[in-house]
Structure formats: C-alpha cells, structure tokens
C-alpha cells in the first residue's frame, strides 16, 4: 500500500513537471551589452517595443558597466559555448571568435533583405566583414572626443574648437589649470588608444595587421613623458585615484566628480555624460588634438551587435539588428547613445529631433567622418594583453619606478613577444 502511494505521488510530480515545461511556448532571447545607466534604459525601452510587437518574446539582459567586464564574461561564456543570442561585441576579439565559429554569418540575411543595409555606406558594412562573411553590424559610429566643461573654458577665455593642435590644447590645459586648478584626464586606463591616435598623427598606426605598426619606441616615450609631465606639473589627474574608480565607467569619471575640466570619452557617451552632469555646467565636445587631423582622426565601429552561431532564433535577432539600423522610432529613443546611426537617412532625420548632448556627438561624428582616414576595425590577437602591459608600464612611470625611456623600450620589446606569441 505504502509503495502504491509513493508511486502515485512520484508520477503526479513527474506529470506536473512536464506540464509546466510544455505549457508555454515562450521565447526568451538573451542579450548582453555594456554601457551606462542611460544606455541600459534606452535599450530596454526599444526592446520592450519589440516585445509588444512580437507577443511571446521576452528578453533576459546581461548588462555590464564597462567593456572590460563585458568582454571577460563573453569569453567565459564562449568557452562554455553559451554566448547570448545577441550581444555587443568588442573589436579586440572579433577575429578570434569568427575563426572559431562562434558567430553567425549574416550574409544570407543581408542578401535576402531581412537585414536591410542598403542605406549604409559600403565601408561601414565592411567593418564587420571578416574573410567572406559579415559577422557583425556596427551599432553606430563614434569617435574619440574630448568632453569638456564649456562653462569653465569660457570663463578662462579658452577657445575650444574642432581640430585643435597639441600645442593649442597644451596651452589651454595649462591656462585653465593655473586659473582654476582643474585638471585633465587623457584617457588614463586606455593609454594604448591614445598611443594609436598619436602614432596615426605621425603617419603610422599602433598596429599594422598582426604586428606593431611603429618602427621604434620613440612614440611610446613621447606619450609616457606627456603623462609624467602632466602628473608632476599637476595638470593631469593623479593615477592614485584610478584604483578606486574603474577607468571607462562614465559615472565615476573625474569630469563628473569635479576634479577635471576635460576628459576623453567616446562621442556616443555625450548623452550619458550630460545626464550625469545635470546642468551643473555646459558640456562641450571636440576632437582629440592632432597636428595632422585628417591622418589622426578615425571613426570607430567600437560597438557592433553580433549574433551567436548557436542561437535558436536567428530571424528574431536579425530583425532586432535591422530595427536598430533602420527604424526611425527606435533611433529617436536611442538618440545616438549607441553612436550615430549608420543608416545615412536616419542620421539626418534624428539630428532635428534629438537635443542637447546628442547633437554634440552627431555633429562631431559627422565632422570627423568627413575629415579622417581609414582605420582597421580589428585588432591583432594579443592586443588586450598589450593594452594591459601599456597601462602597467605607464603606472610604473607615474609612480616613479622607471623612466619613460625605459618604459618605452620595455613596451616595444614586449610587443614583439606578446603579439607574435599569439
């Protein structure tokens, strides 16, 4: 008798489980991206619009505060073959992932028209092309920018304009520091990006295919010396505070917390910055200083949406990417937070409907894209490690452990080892 009761209970439990499993044919798409709070809100808003028009589809988000954590988590999930259906990728690992078959080739969808890239310049479509296939679609265009406190600049009589030379910018820096004590943050934590811009200024580029693009350590030394001068003379923010804040996270940037009047940001972070500044001062945005602007400037596909090769719902994911690229409504909500829309007509369309900070970024990207030279969208294998090594050596210079010359030489020697070992 007891055994009968036990058997009945077990069967009922089994039936209940199976019933729940087959009751709902709900689709849940996993999405991952990085960015600030305002980007998260905007993205969730457009995705809820998608859910409304596609009943039964819901989303599971994985949101990270900065690109570093996002990429590390994607690497972990790639190892387990469990990448999210749709995720924002970083350029540094694109090639590796394509080679190991982690990403879905979007060419059939482009050809069938499900992913309509007809209004997108060919050069931008090529940013996602590896080998024979297109594996990612740029969310939007952005470029490096100096985000600055326009109120303070005006008060100190400093004119900030597009295409300032390094001399002009250095004068501005020192003037404002002497008058107000406010400093600058020249992208500390991402020094290799600055090195790349300076190298391009001189006619090289940090990477040349899979190797280092600079012939010797002199550019490294120049950049390290710049930071050292800044910290010693006081006009660059001290490296000590970058342990307690994470570089690249907009919310804790020294421009927001008040010790800097100028910082380096991506043009599409204008909105996030403006929201955080909240009318305390006027935000301005201009291009990174360069002596040869057209050589130095570049337009980045720093974010691109990719679809995992293992996704069960490729059509839905393609539709989402299509909407991000081509839907006016979605882009009005996004307001260039993910970069200036790659669809030319949409970019023109939203200029009139967005306001304030978004206008700054759209205007800057428009200008830079017309006054820039091509840049490779992918990084060689080992770029991440090289970037960390650069940051570490700069840290050692700023803490007085080694001289800029020694650091530059160590970096140059390490480059050949890191980039070739991979």
């Amino acid at each position, binding site marked *: 008798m007891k055994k009968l009761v036990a058997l009945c209970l077990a069967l009922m439990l089994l039936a209940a489980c199976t019933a729940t499993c087959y009751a709902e044919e709900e689709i849940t798409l996993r999405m991952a991206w990085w960015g600030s709070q305002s980007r998260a809100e905007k993205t969730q808003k457009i995705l809820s619009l998608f859910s409304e028009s596609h009943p039964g589809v819901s989303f599971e988000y994985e949101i990270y505060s900065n690109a570093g954590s996002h990429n590390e988590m994607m690497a972990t999930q790639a190892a387990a073959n469990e990448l999210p259906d749709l995720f924002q990728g970083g350029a540094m690992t694109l090639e*590796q992932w394509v*080679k190991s078959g982690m990403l879905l080739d979007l060419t059939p969808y482009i050809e069938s028209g499900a992913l309509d890239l007809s209004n997108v310049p060919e050069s931008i479509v090529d940013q996602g092309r590896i080998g024979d296939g297109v594996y990612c679609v740029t969310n939007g265009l952005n470029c490096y920018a100096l985000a600055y406190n326009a109120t303070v600049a005006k008060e100190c009589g400093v004119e900030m304009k597009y295409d300032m030379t390094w001399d002009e910018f250095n004068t501005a820096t020192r003037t404002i520091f002497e008058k107000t004590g406010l400093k600058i943050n020249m992208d500390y934590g991402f020094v290799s990006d600055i090195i790349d811009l300076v190298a391009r200024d001189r006619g090289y580029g940090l990477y040349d295919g899979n190797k280092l693009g600079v012939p010797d350590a002199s550019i490294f030394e120049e950049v390290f010396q710049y930071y050292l001068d800044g910290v010693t003379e006081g006009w660059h923010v001290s490296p000590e505070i970058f342990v307690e804040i994470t570089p690249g996270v907009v919310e804790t940037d020294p421009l927001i917390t008040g010790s800097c009047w100028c910082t380096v940001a991506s043009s599409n972070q204008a909105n996030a910055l403006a929201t955080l500044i909240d009318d305390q001062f006027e935000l301005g945005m201009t291009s990174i200083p360069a002596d040869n602007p057209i050589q130095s400037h570049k337009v980045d596909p720093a974010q691109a949406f990719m679809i995992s090769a293992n996704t069960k719902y490729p059509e839905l994911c393609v539709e989402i990417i299509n909407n991000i690229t081509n839907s006016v409504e979605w882009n009005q909500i996004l307001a260039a937070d993910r970069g200036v829309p790659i669809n030319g007509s949409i970019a023109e369309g939203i200029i009139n409907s967005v306001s304030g900070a978004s206008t700054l970024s759209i205007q800057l990207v428009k200008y830079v894209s017309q006054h820039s030279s091509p840049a490779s969208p992918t990084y060689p294998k080992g770029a991440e490690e090289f970037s960390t090594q650069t940051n570490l050596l700069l840290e050692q210079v700023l803490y007085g452990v080694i001289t800029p010359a020694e650091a530059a030489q160590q970096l140059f020697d390490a480059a050949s080892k890191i980039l070739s070992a991979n």
Partner: protein
Amino acid sequence: MMVTSKRRFFQRDQNVGFLFTLPFTIGFFVFTVVPIAYALYYSLTNYDVLTPSVFVGLNNYINLFTGDAVFWQSLRATTIFSLVSVPLRLMFALFVALLMLRPSRLSSLYRAVYYMPSIMGGSVAIAIVWRRFFASNGTLNALLGLLGISSSYAWLGHPNTAMLSLILLDMWQFGSAMLIFLAALKQIPQELYEAADVDGAKRSARFFRITLPMLTPTIFFNLIMQIISAFLQFTKCYIITEGKPLNSTLFYVVNLYYQAFKYYHMGYACAMAVFMLVLVGGITYIMFVTKKRWVYEV
C-alpha cells in the same frame, strides 16, 4: 524460499553505505576530479578556448617560472597577504573569543553580531562598500575630517596602504574562527584552571601555560584552513583594486583569471592552477610534518 541475491546485496551494511554516499561521490567525481584532470591535461597544451588545443609539453611551466614577472609579483602579493592577514585574524578571533567566555546576558547577541561580517564579508556588495570606504573622497577620510584631520589621501592608490585595506577586510571576517575558538575554549577542563589557582598562577600564566597549549589543535586546524583560503582569495582583489597599483595587490587567482579569460591563455592558466595546487599541498604537508613540535595532542 531462497533469499534472492538482490536482497543479500542490500543486507550487507557496506553496500548500503556505498549507495548512500553515491550522490556525493558522483558529484565529487564530476565536479572536482574530472575538472582537475582536465586542468592537468590542458596545462600541457596551449589551449586558448576558441581553437583546438595543441600539445606543448612543459612549455607553459617553463614560461611561468622563467619569463613571467607578473606571476612572481602575484605570488609575492598573495603570500604577503596570507602571512599577514591569517595570524592577525586568528589573534583577533582568539581575543574576542576570550572576551566572550564570560557569560553575560547579551553573549548570544554579541556572538551573532561578531559573526555577521563573516557571512556578509565575502560578498561583492561589501567589497564595493570597502572600496568606497577607502576612496580619496570616501568615508574614512570623512571620518578623519570629523576628528580634525583633513585628508584626501588615496588609501587605495599607494601600494602599501592598498594592501593594508585588503588585509583589514580579511581581518574583519574573523567570525567563523572566533566561533571555533569559543567552542574549543569551552572544552578546556576546568580542573586544570583550578589546579593552577591552587598553585598560585598569575593570569598570564593561566593563558600561556594552559589555555594556549590546549588550544593548539584548534589553532592548527584554523591555520591550515585559513591559509588555504587566503591563497585562493579572489573577490577582494578583483572588486576593490583589480591588482593595482603597480600589481602590488594582484592576487594569484585574479592573475589566473585574467590569463584565462582576458588574454585567452587557458593552457597557461591551467599550469598556474596546477602550481597553486602543488604549493598549497606543500604548505599543508609541511604543517602536518611539523605538527608534533607544537601541537599538544591530548
């Protein structure tokens, strides 16, 4: 009727016992033994997660010991952390346990309150709070300001004080060691203390001649467990300092994580993991071998 062989199987205690341990054994095998075996295998390859692995023999180990300054730095940082924080933590735990020996109406409350950091402390939330606490515009400097010392010192920005803040966080979580000491203290036979009183022993003699020797097995146990866990610390370093400044606070496991998931050197990271296994095993072995010298076994 013949007893079926199935019945006979279940009648032997040994077999039933084996079946009862099967859930654990299977779990242990699948989630511990097999991954360790895989790690051993991958440490001999240049597996980079995305492409099939290629056997390279002992290359990873050779590179680890001869070509990687960051590895030695992380080992140094982790060792300093362990050797400083573990004894401090145990001393603190013992001190508080001795205070709590005195029965008072609030002793259960005190026990709960002092144990709380142990539960919460390892979490990410506390680590973030700690990071803000030591920030240049954080709580510690604000408190110093209240005391009249105006300070905007970046505690986490200098190599010495950054390590101190991590050690402090580890010391703060003394609760579990404290409870174990408390239990052991209560087991020390009262006759010993009474005999000491009769002989006219002073307070310090009571502590150093009776309490401490009787506690040595517990101290031994705590020491081993705490040292092993100190070498495997991850959250503190990853959230609070990420190894900066100058890699002075880079813990071994955080370095391993970066190698594996940031640079895609999974084979190399596995070699690091195997080395940690050998290191911790070696330390434990040495402690067991020298046990007889200082641990008083009743």
